[in-house]
């Protein structure tokens, strides 16, 4: 088991596309770490560069105490689960799980023993003679995990491990993966484009955009205090309200309404300054009656989220969204008022958190 460290890691493709731009990242031993970002942000390239499937054009990859930047993938002592699981269709489950051991010239007896042991741990014992084509998606994923576990590598890399499962199974697999990682205690880096997945599973995460890391932190930090408007807009199942505003003395003028300065920004703003006011729809108190420091406007859309509703207000010429608990939802066309929570609202200046 080992820590992973990236020092000034760059990857420039021939043709000049900068997939990774001088990244620094330290993942301590045993951590479950998520690389999150929209497609094309470089998260998969980063994972593949750690694996050695892509060669870095600058900087260093250190696994354990060893600089592996120029080392072949097979000699890095890491194991990877691919998005499509990459199980060999002509081999049965036992042979698939024990394949890395076979390459390492482990004898047939110990190899099968190890495969049986790991397979049993993942509930595959009755499937060991099947071919991948005869398994469900969830079972295939567990075989891929078993193959990784059988290697006893220093670190595991998962590329979009849940994206090939259907929605219901994905939630189960999420819980299962997190529990498994905790039990094994192996440093694990996984890539995902789904912010909910990253928040749910990771110990810490890096949010990436266009080859840069925009924020590193625990899910709670990233969710509650996004370091910039990109992260703020990307994290959260309902997008954060990001509204242009101006500082007016002790209050803010945002979307034609007067709202209070958030707790975290108190005393750090100057009069007349242009800012972006950010607050999550979940942190808004909605009422049908006018209220002090509220965004007021006409209800234009009400979306059902199950136990709550997402209400869109038209305040002036901008839209403000608020989550309203079930039973209190307004009708379209009503006037509504949403008071942001002062301890949860955030101020961004030039795109960065104040």
């Amino acid at each position, binding site marked *: 088991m080992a820590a992973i460290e990236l020092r000034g890691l760059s990857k420039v493709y021939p043709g000049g596309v900068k997939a990774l731009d001088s990244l620094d990242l330290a993942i301590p031993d045993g951590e479950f770490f998520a690389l999150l970002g929209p497609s094309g942000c470089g998260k998969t390239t980063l994972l593949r560069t750690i694996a050695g499937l892509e060669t870095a054009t600058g900087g260093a990859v250190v696994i354990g105490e060893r600089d592996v930047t120029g080392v072949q993938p*097979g000699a890095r002592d890491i194991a990877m689960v*691919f998005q499509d699981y*990459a199980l060999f269709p002509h081999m049965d489950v036992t042979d698939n799980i024990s*394949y890395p051991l076979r390459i*390492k010239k482990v004898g047939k007896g110990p190899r099968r023993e190890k495969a049986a042991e790991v397979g049993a741990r993942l509930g595959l014992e009755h499937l060991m003679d099947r071919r991948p084509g005869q398994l469900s998606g969830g079972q295939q994923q567990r075989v891929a995990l078993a193959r990784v576990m059988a290697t006893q590598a220093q670190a595991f890399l998962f590329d979009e491990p849940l994206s090939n499962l259907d929605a219901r199974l994905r939630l189960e697999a999420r819980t299962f993966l997190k529990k498994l990682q905790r039990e094994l205690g192996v440093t694990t880096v996984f890539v995902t484009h789904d912010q909910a997945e990253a928040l749910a599973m990771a110990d810490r995460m890096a949010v990436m955009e266009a080859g840069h890391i925009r924020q590193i932190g625990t899910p709670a930090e990233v969710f509650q205090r996004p370091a910039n408007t990109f992260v703020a807009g990307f994290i959260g*199942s309902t997008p954060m309200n990001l509204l242009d505003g101006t500082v007016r003395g002790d209050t803010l003028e945002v979307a034609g309404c007067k709202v209070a300065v958030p707790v975290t920004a108190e005393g750090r703003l100057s009069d007349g300054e242009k800012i972006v006011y950010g607050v999550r729809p979940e942190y808004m108190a909605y009422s049908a009656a006018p209220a002090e420091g509220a965004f007021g406007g006409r209800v234009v859309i009400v979306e059902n989220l199950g136990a709550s509703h997402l209400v869109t207000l038209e305040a002036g010429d901008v839209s403000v969204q608020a989550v309203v608990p079930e039973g209190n939802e307004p009708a379209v066309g009503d006037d509504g008022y949403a008071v942001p929570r002062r301890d949860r609202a955030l101020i961004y200046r030039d795109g960065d958190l104040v």
Partner: protein
Amino acid sequence: MAQATSPPEVVRESGQARRYNSDAAGLGRLRAGAFAAPALLLIAVFLVFPALWVLYLGLTNYRLTGIAAAEPQFVGLDNLISAVSDPTFWSSTWLTVQFVLGSAVIGQVGLGFAIAWLLRDRQGPLKRLVEGLVILAWILPSAIVSFLWVALLDRDGGTLNALLSTPQFAPLLDHPMLSIIVFNTWRGTAFSMMLYGAALGNVPPSHLESARLAGASGWQQLRDVVFPHIRGHILTNLLLISLWTFNDFTPFLLTAGGPDGQSEVLAVHVYKVALQGGELGYGAAVSTIILLINLVVAVFYLRLLRSKK
């Protein structure tokens, strides 16, 4: 989040669906038959009839000239019996086996796969140049390439001798089989190269990468990932080029079967006995044997293909 579920789609009238299954174009049997008829007629006239005619001729003493040309006699299995008791027939068969194994199975498949494998991740001028040259060898007419090869390998004033400064070296006379094997490898590699190039594109990159991460060497990647994936392509390729090479007549243009029958493969043998020797009945009988051998080879490969699981 709640997923919207749509009500099950109303099942369409199944009788109509079934009718469309058996008659997708909706033409009806008669009109569909009319469309297929010209093609069937051509196949019957130029393929089925000649094949049956050869089977019949093989049972007669039909000759190119003389009395037997005007009134061929039915001789039963005499031609077949004299063929299998003729040592030149067996030496021709053995030469054909060498030709197929050497130029098709080892030469074209081996070289074609090797080029496709080496060029798989490459792009740009080198790849286009290599592919262009290989394909050029394939698309040029036989008469032209044979002449070029005769000019290359000729004892007196051949290009090879000029290049190597080895006057009087005569590959076509001293190593006739090797010459036609090398020639046919050069000639036919393009097909295998293109087929394997397409097949390799279907091998999932993640499978190769998975093997690389496990530490598999290049050979182990081929054995454990590539070959199992393209097994069907390999067998189809082997089937096609084995049969093509078995029946290939181009060696005649290089060596005319000589010297002294040393490169007289079966296709050339048939030509010699039937058209040069005039024994059409006997030639037809040998053709029948070739047909049977082709059938056995085809069935062998198709069996292998079917035993996929």
